[in-house]
């Protein structure tokens, strides 16, 4: 069973309590009407899909109900860290170095 820790509850819970909610840190353009179709499509649909560490949104649906961000390794499914909404994205390269130690 995959355990995910929730930064709001401060506890680890089974994955079944959570829902994945797509890539994190994608800001909605301030003025959508000024964008070209290509730029809008880029915002709407294009995601990084990396092999390795990725910043994702998750929601503790069957718990506190809050969205939070997590850094997950897409290869091993390991959650490297979780952090609250509004907090800065951690330096992924730094995390990789720490994970290797």
């Amino acid at each position, binding site marked *: 069973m995959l355990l995910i820790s929730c930064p709001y509850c401060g506890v680890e819970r*089974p994955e079944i*309590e959570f829902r994945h909610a797509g890539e994190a840190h994608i800001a909605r353009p301030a003025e959508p009407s000024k964008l070209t179709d290509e730029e809008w499509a880029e915002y709407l649909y294009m995601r990084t899909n990396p092999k390795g560490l990725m910043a994702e949104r998750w929601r503790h649906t069957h718990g*506190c*109900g*809050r969205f939070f961000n997590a850094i997950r390794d897409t290869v091993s499914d390991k959650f490297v860290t979780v952090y609250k909404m509004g907090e800065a994205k951690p330096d992924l390269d730094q995390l990789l170095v720490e994970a290797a130690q």
Partner: protein
Amino acid sequence: MPEKSVYSANADLAPIIATSRVRVAEAAPLIRFSLRGGEAAASHAGTAVGVSLPLEPLTSIATDKVAAFWLGPDEWNLVIQDDDARAMFERVETALADTPHSLVDVSDRNRALIISGRKAAWLLNSQVFLDFDEASFPVGMVTRTLFGKAEIMLWRQAEDTFVIEAWRSFMPYVIELLQEASRELEAA
């Protein structure tokens, strides 16, 4: 130390499970409010109902007449024993008049079960995947979680007493799974 409890078994109904090691009873009707808002709203609502709402994650405050459960950073479940739900709602709503909030009367949305006895945690563990050791789930802790596929609110009132709240449409599912697990307990 057991917490004080607003929940009492409904004397008009037969217990759902009554064995030597575990007992499950439906709780008598109560007033329930769902409160969403910031800490200011929590403080004003607390004054109106007579307890200070818990701000620490997964904690509760309980007296004989009122219980306040932390469900999220901006969400509380208030359970109150009182004859007049409408007057109580008006009182809390008035106290919150100048604070951004959402207060909803959900008294009829939920039903509650009281699960007690030496094997209460064992019975719950048939469907709830949490560690009920006192160190990780102490008395007074409350959480929303899953019971099988049904979302529940789970509160540990005493070392061997738990209270489950679930939506009333989920309750037959929860009760039948508890009964099934209790048959296994009897057979063991």
